[in-house]
């Protein structure tokens, strides 16, 4: 499962809109990932490189 570096994440919500499996929810204070299939799409999107 991909990991979010909370110190870097801006909570912009973009990763949730590109995940092909609808695994990501970005709330006003955290990124929740469920059932990740490790496709790497969200990581490629992130404007600040918060996803590892």
């Amino acid at each position: 499962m991909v990991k979010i570096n909370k110190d870097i994440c801006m909570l912009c919500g973009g990763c949730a809109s590109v995940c092909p499996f609808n695994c990501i929810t970005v709330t006003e204070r955290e990124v929740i990932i469920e059932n990740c299939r490790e496709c790497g799409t969200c990581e490629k999107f992130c404007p600040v490189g918060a996803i590892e």
Partner: protein
Amino acid sequence: MKKDLIVIGAGPAGSMAAINSKCDTVLIDQRAEIGVPKQCAEGVSESLFKKIGIKPKKEWISKKIKYTSLISPSGIEIKLDDKRVKKAKFGFVLNRKNFDKGLAEIAANNGTELMPKTRFIKAERTENGVKIYAKRFNETIEIEGRILIACDGVQSKVAKSFGLNTTLPLRYIESCYQYEMTNIEIEPAVELYFGRVYAPGGYVWIFPKGENSANVGIGIVPSLTEKRAKDYLDDFLKRERLKGGKIVEINAGAVPISTPLEKTYADNLMICGDAARMVNPLTGGGIHTACISGSIAGKIATKAIEKEDYSEKFLSEYQKLWKNEFGKELEYYGKAQEVLIKLTDAELDKIAESLQEIKLESISTMEILKAIVKMNPKLLWKLKSLIT
């Protein structure tokens, strides 16, 4: 709780939907403070307020814009000021925090029940309507309604919970990053820097906000590069133009550049604004389309509730109306974006050279594109889809 209409997301789309509804409406947003954080460069054209029929408050507007400057990869600047453009129009850089909150306030004053810090979790259909579950502080609340309007922005979770696929491929999203900066010299102009050196698949913008401050930001298409939006913008900041600049705020976000969802309605459901991917794919501007689609959805919802008809057939009127307003335009800009993304930096420089003497009737993106096509016959094969 029981309501006629449930609107999710109090961005421009959701607040305009609530303002235009004349029924028992609830508007929820996951944010504790509507409009915060800002995820926007805040540029709009002057026509916005007339179009939505709302008089702007002073605090919604940061700066009046007199012209646009386009800058090519090698640094050729095309100033589209009143010397070049006959019927020059102006624009505004908004204060989105005040604008978004202001629209939500109007909705609340018109009778909408406004619920901040209330996050949509999921929806299900009931016999003749919908029921949503939402998290408000540590409590899960249920709201029953007849119609749901999804205005939850780029994440578009509401539509997904109805089984609609709103996933954006990496080629059709802009990965965005922005600094609000002060202590820089500005003109009353928006500056757009095009080319892969600055921003693959997008552009860098400088939108003035005050006497000496501006939103300096970038959008890139992530499928075109390994680097981050932040890396490109940090490089851009090294230039002379911004050397003394101080960062006062940092923003990030995503812009859909895919052209709208094919179907923006279903039984009991309408989808507006970014959630329906209604953004100008060339400029990334989505405030106008969010406001207009929201307004239309609010009106259609009111009619449906009066007639007690929440069927997909009745709500299809929504799609017909927004398509009339801006459907063709977004399609055209989608094509233009497909072309722009394929142009090399050398071609962009050539285009900039050809535009140095340009004289235009008005400053619509369409006019500029047509001028480009006219003056660059050698590029015609790449540009031909834009000649309508």
